[in-house]
């Protein structure tokens, strides 16, 4: 099971945080601080795996965003890399050529997509099309046209 998924920029600003274990606010802040420090300090062309406390940390950099997740001892790190990649693909499909600004201005959509893809620290849906389809269908239920049509307009 994965314990958390964090997205942060190169400057260490948090863009998305999903926690799959109950932690207090203080503990969450500590984890975020540690992750940002550790991952941002890694030189390029090193492996994507780290050891932190009793968790395996898998991180991957996509353009200006770092995706960082914490796994348990028995989890498969290479599969975690694939999982991160799949999530990026889903975001890309939904937003159309996703970039960091999309995730900043539409963070709640990013969460909705994540909630269709992962649950309880495990993968929920393995099909590429099903996730995007569910989110779009759910969007149609939004009560007002204005909300439904609100796409990134920065």
């Amino acid at each position, binding site marked *: 099971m994965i314990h958390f998924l964090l997205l942060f920029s190169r400057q260490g600003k948090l863009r998305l945080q999903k926690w799959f274990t109950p932690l207090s606010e203080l503990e969450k802040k500590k984890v975020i601080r540690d992750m940002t420090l550790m991952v941002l300090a890694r030189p390029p062309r090193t*492996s994507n*795996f780290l050891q932190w406390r009793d968790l395996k940390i898998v991180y991957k950099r996509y353009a200006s965003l770092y995706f960082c997740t914490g796994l348990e001892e028995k989890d498969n790190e290479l599969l975690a890399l694939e999982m991160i990649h799949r999530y990026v693909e889903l975001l890309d499909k939904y937003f159309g050529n996703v970039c960091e600004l999309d995730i900043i201005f539409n963070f709640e959509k990013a969460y909705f997509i994540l909630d269709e893809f992962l649950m309880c620290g495990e993968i929920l849906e393995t099909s590429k099309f099903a996730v995007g389809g569910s989110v779009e269908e759910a969007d149609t239920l939004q009560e007002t046209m204005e909300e439904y049509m609100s796409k990134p307009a920065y």
Partner: protein
Amino acid sequence: MSPSVPLQEMIRAIRSARTQCEERGVIQRECAAIRAQFRQSDNGGRSHNLAKLLYVHMLGYPAHFGQMECVRMIASPRYSEKRVGYLGAMMLLDEKQDASLLITNSIKNDLSHSNQYVQSLALCTLACMGSAEMCRDLAPEIDRLLQSSNSYIKKKAALCAVHIVRKVQDLGELFVPAARSLLSEKNHGVLHGAVVLITQLCERNPETLKRFRKVCLVWFFLQTVPDLVQIMKGLIISGYSPEHDVSGISDPFLQVRILRLLRILGRNSESASDAMNDLLAQVATNTDSTKTVGNAVLYETVLTVLDIKSESGLRVLAVNILGRFLLNSDRNIRYIAMTSLQKIVGTDHNAVQRHRGTIVDCLKDQDASVKRRALELSLALVSASNIRSMIKELLLFLSSCPPELKAQATSGIFIAAERYAPSKRWHIDTILHVLTTAGGDVRDETVPNLIHLITSASELHCYTVHKLYRALLTDISQQSLVQVACWCIGEYGDLLLKGECQETEPVQVSEDDVLDALETVLQSHMSSSATRGFALTATMKLSTRITDNVDRIRSIVSIYGSCIDVELQQRAVEYNALFKKYDHMRAAVLERMPLIEKNNSGNANGEATRETLTETNSSRTAQEERVPPPPQQQPAKQTYDLLDLLGGASEPLQQSPAAQTLPIITSSSAGGDLLDLLGGLEPTPGPVTPAPSATVYEKDGVTLTLSCEQQSDSSLAVTLTATNASQSDISGFTLQAAVPKSVQLNMNAPSRDSLPAQGAAQLTQLVMLNNPNKVNLKMRIRISYTRQGSAFQDMVQVDSLPGLGAAGHT
């Protein structure tokens, strides 16, 4: 009140703030507006406000006032509000908050909502932050959903059930039938959820199971093995499926989960492992390993093969795959390979040894994580046959290794060297090499261990002292190295000055050079207090080993008599005394140390020996030394028993107590070992049995009785009782005792220190003796007291403790 700004406007405003202060200002204004909006009744923009609050929360600002709003919005009939409300609940509430209980009812209602997306919101939230009570409440509902016909809901219900089982382990039984039947689904999402659920049910904590008297479900799910094998085969052989395909592999996520479940099921079952063999071989050979995803599946397969009761051919195949991984250009794969090899190095040692070369090469990798794994694995692979080459590589690694790995590396090298050292000289060389490279990161026991090693390699004394002297000249910053070097120079300085050595090139060293080196250490600001203590003692020891510069040594020693460091000052003063008053004893006191008996288990005897010998060294006033029984009972010609200094000189003891020049240790509760005051004692095994008491001394009304009690095989408790039958009071009554060399003595504090007249009270003192060598126990007791203003001292010798032979005589 300013109108509330839509979410994106606010985000833009926050981002355009140039300073932290400005940002805080914007956020404070927004939060105030949001709070005001929350207090108002329902308006169209509620979801906007909550979304804004969640954004602010993500930036790290407090947002707890939004919790109640979340609860309210979850209960709203509008979907957009529910959506944001549930999101807010997942972000702001957790099971520890009281507000989370309030949403239980909403979740319950929404679980039976007609719209599947509302149901899914409820399921998702329950799985994210459901507390144990909520889980108990809603478990039957989840079970019902697991059997619905909607696969969208089924897959979510499956993972929700996983959460419930994690939180409340004994609810697992509830989901067993549903989990079993889900395996016949076609939908990959549902299948995946089912496999995860079954895995969770099988992995339940055995402790909890015992507590609730539940059965481990692995045996139940063994029947699913054929189904799982079937599903896997379908995935591997099936044609291209666009929605599940990842670089040519059909649904790798599901494949990996099935492999993991097979691992758990086959771990303890022969039949299950047999059923999987073919499948695992097929996956291992057919999976394309050019991309990460293929390697992920291969990796899981390897882990499964190594964990179940697989046949040997399959195991070899698995280890070979790991070997291939080790040669992969992708660092991640190499890291993974080493992690897995670490797990099997205990069981399949030979298989891993074959890849030793590659592993050792990984020590030179740039990546710190890879280096760490390579170090652990290399240390595990050291054996008697490859010790020399491995240690060479590890020493090379040590010189360039990152600081966080240094301590692990040094202790690993020491342990390996100790276990497999081919020769003493190699061992000493290795330790010296480590000390010069990474002396700051070695453990504290290294110094005494090394000293012990050096003393035991008597043929290498000359070589060692030359090497250490050279090392000392080069660099005096590594404290452990300097300490050992000083000790050696002090002990074997004469060998150094002789100049010739078979093992290493001879170098002409004059006495001045040696003293210069020691003085540099003494005066350097880099030397710690302990190191300077070593150096001072070494200087002192040289006074008996060199001939010309004794005066220089005297001057050095006397200078430190006024040193600020109390430890050094004490030593210097005592050494000074050794020069002045006790010059006749100096040679004997500073003779070579005998072989230290090393006790590996924290035996009090051994521990104290190590500490005493390395910290205080022989030049402490001999009476305070504690020396273990020498291996041979006869003092060998060249190793002088340190404390035998009074062996031949028993005259001082017969002198009148008043003229006593020998400071004998006073009785103290710390206790110290005493000299062999009785000289020339041949240790013979004597029966030590519990004995009654006997009067050992009687004079001027002072009576001393002694009684013994056998505590254990070698320890004896002796109680001394003194009474005063005379007419006048006695004050300042003290007893001092001496026992044979090999016996340890520990005197507890006396019950009182004065004896009133006419036996009004008596004084008792307990003495603990430890006689491991079972020598004949004798004791010499000195009594001193003050009566009517005048001091009095007397001595009594107890040749055999009461009950063992004749009573003591004066």
